[in-house]
Each structure stands twice: as C-alpha cells, then as structure tokens.
C-alpha cells in the first residue's frame, strides 16, 4: 500500500472541510469551532486541521489534511505542509477579491507547489461573474506555475475525486 499525504488549503469558506468530508472513507477528524468573526459568513470554522482518508484501488491510499483558511493560522499551514506530496488550493469565487486570495496561498506554498504537485479549484463559481477562470490561470503563469485550474463543487464526491486524480496525474509525471 502506497500512502500519500495531500494537503487542502485555501480561503475561509471555500469548502476545505466539506471536500475532505465528501470523499473520506473514515469518519473525519475535524477541529471546527464556533466562529466569532461575522465577516466570514459561516457559523463554524476550522482552527487546527481536518483529517480524512480515501483509497484509490488496491494499492494507493491518500491521507487528506486540511488547513485553517485564515492567515492568522499560517503557523498551522507550515506544520501541515511537512511531508505533503501534493497541494489543493480551494478559492471561494464569491469573495471580494479571489485573485488576491489565491495569490496569498501561491506565495506561501510556492516551494511546495514547485517541488510537488498542485491543483487550484475555484468553488462557488458563477460564470457570469468576474473574474473568469482564465484570470486565475494567468495568475499562475505570472508566478511561473503551470498547474491545472478548474471550477468545482466540492460538496460532490465525484468532483473532489476528479481534483485528486488531476493531482495524482502530476505526481506520476514527476516520478
């Protein structure tokens, strides 16, 4: 059995906890607490980590870790990034400046992205609203990154599995 550690990060409310719960085969471990921050628009928020597991066929198992979204928990980002073989960045499209949000994670995890694999998934995307997907791709190019950028509904197990497939495809190319 080959095991990989995969890390989910990204904006608060983008669906990191939801994505891990959608695909995990074990009851997820989660550290949600009541949010006292009215600006994030939800009642619960992750303050330490999420954990779930999913197996792919007979030979591979993914250990899924999720980070808190807020930058004040960036010390947890570094703790959780240790040993990760791939990064999934979820960006909430309904936030005021999702490009700026994405840039924060691209900068912070630049080394992990360059050394391992990364997929950027835009959640809650309404195609009639700017910015279009192309601008997120452009931002990656500006950072000399060529990782896949997709729109996804992370409540849907199939779509989260698809994101994981995209990530694993990059990992296989590197091997």
């Amino acid at each position, binding site marked *: 059995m080959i095991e990989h550690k995969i890390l989910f990060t990204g904006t608060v409310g983008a669906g990191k906890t939801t994505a891990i719960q959608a695909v995990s085969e074990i009851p997820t471990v989660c550290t949600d*607490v*009541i*949010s006292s921050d009215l600006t994030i628009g939800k009642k619960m928020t992750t303050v330490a980590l999420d954990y779930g597991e999913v197996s792919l066929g007979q030979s591979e198992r993914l250990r899924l870790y999720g980070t*808190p979204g807020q930058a004040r928990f960036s*010390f*947890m980002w570094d703790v959780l990034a240790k040993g990760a073989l791939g990064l999934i960045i979820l960006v909430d499209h309904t936030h005021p400046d999702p490009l700026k949000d994405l840039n924060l994670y691209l900068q912070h995890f630049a080394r992990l992205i360059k050394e391992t694999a990364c997929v950027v998934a835009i959640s809650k995307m309404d195609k009639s609203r700017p910015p279009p997907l192309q601008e997120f791709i452009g931002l990656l190019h500006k950072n000399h990154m060529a990782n896949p950028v997709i729109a996804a509904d992370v409540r849907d197990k199939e779509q989260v599995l698809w994101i994981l497939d995209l990530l694993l495809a990059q990992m296989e190319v590197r091997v």
Partner: protein
Amino acid sequence: MNTVANDSNEYPSQLVNEELRNKARLLLQVLVEKFGGAGVNNAVISTTDGFDIAVESMSKEDGTKLSALSSSISAIGHMAVKEVGTGEHHQSILIEGENGYLLIMDIPYPGCPLTMSITATKEAMLGKLIYYARQLVSKMSEA
C-alpha cells in the same frame, strides 16, 4: 459532521461585549498580581476561534498571536480527549519548554466558549499557577 454545543442562535461576537472584556481583563490582572512579577509573564483570554478579548502584561500584537496559537492547540486537545475517550472537552493543556510553561485552559462560558493562555517561567510554582488558573476559569465561566 462535527458538532459543538451552542444552544444560542446568537453569534458569539454579539456575546463578546464590553462587560465580558472587562471581566476577563480584571480576572487576568488579579491572577498576574498573585505572583507579584515572579514567574508569570503573560496571559490572554480569547474566543475559541482565536481572537483575543483580554490581554495582560503583553503587547496587543503578541496577544493576537498567542490567541491564534492557543486556539489551534486547544482544538487539537478537544479532539484528542474525544479520540482517546477521556471526555468531551479538554480542561487544560500544559506545554513545558526548557525555560518555562504555556498553560492553556478551556473556559466553558455559556454560548461563547473561551480559551485562556498563560505563559510562565520555571520560577513560577506550577501548582500555584494551576490552582489560580482554575479559580479564574470557574469565575469566568459564570454567565
């Protein structure tokens, strides 16, 4: 799905009012004074999602940082207590470094759970620290 007990429909930020801040500030002052400068350096009371509501003997900036740190550690503590079957909530977490301690305690304030963090040097008597910290928690937990 995870659950955290919250009977109230109010957001905690509406419960974090000036009265609660003052009470927290006063209790922290009393605790630090008990040690008269010998050993207990800093103390902060925060919401469980890591925002400081009262900071004692440290800069606002350091209080903000310690609040975020303690909220993560505290959440892991709650998770650990459940996983190993020793309860639903941790009551205290003690982290010992070469030169001192970080003591984190859960404050089950009704509708708005809080976390207290105290840093102390090895000069501080640990038993005394835990005793007064528990006293503070019980006073602070009263609505």
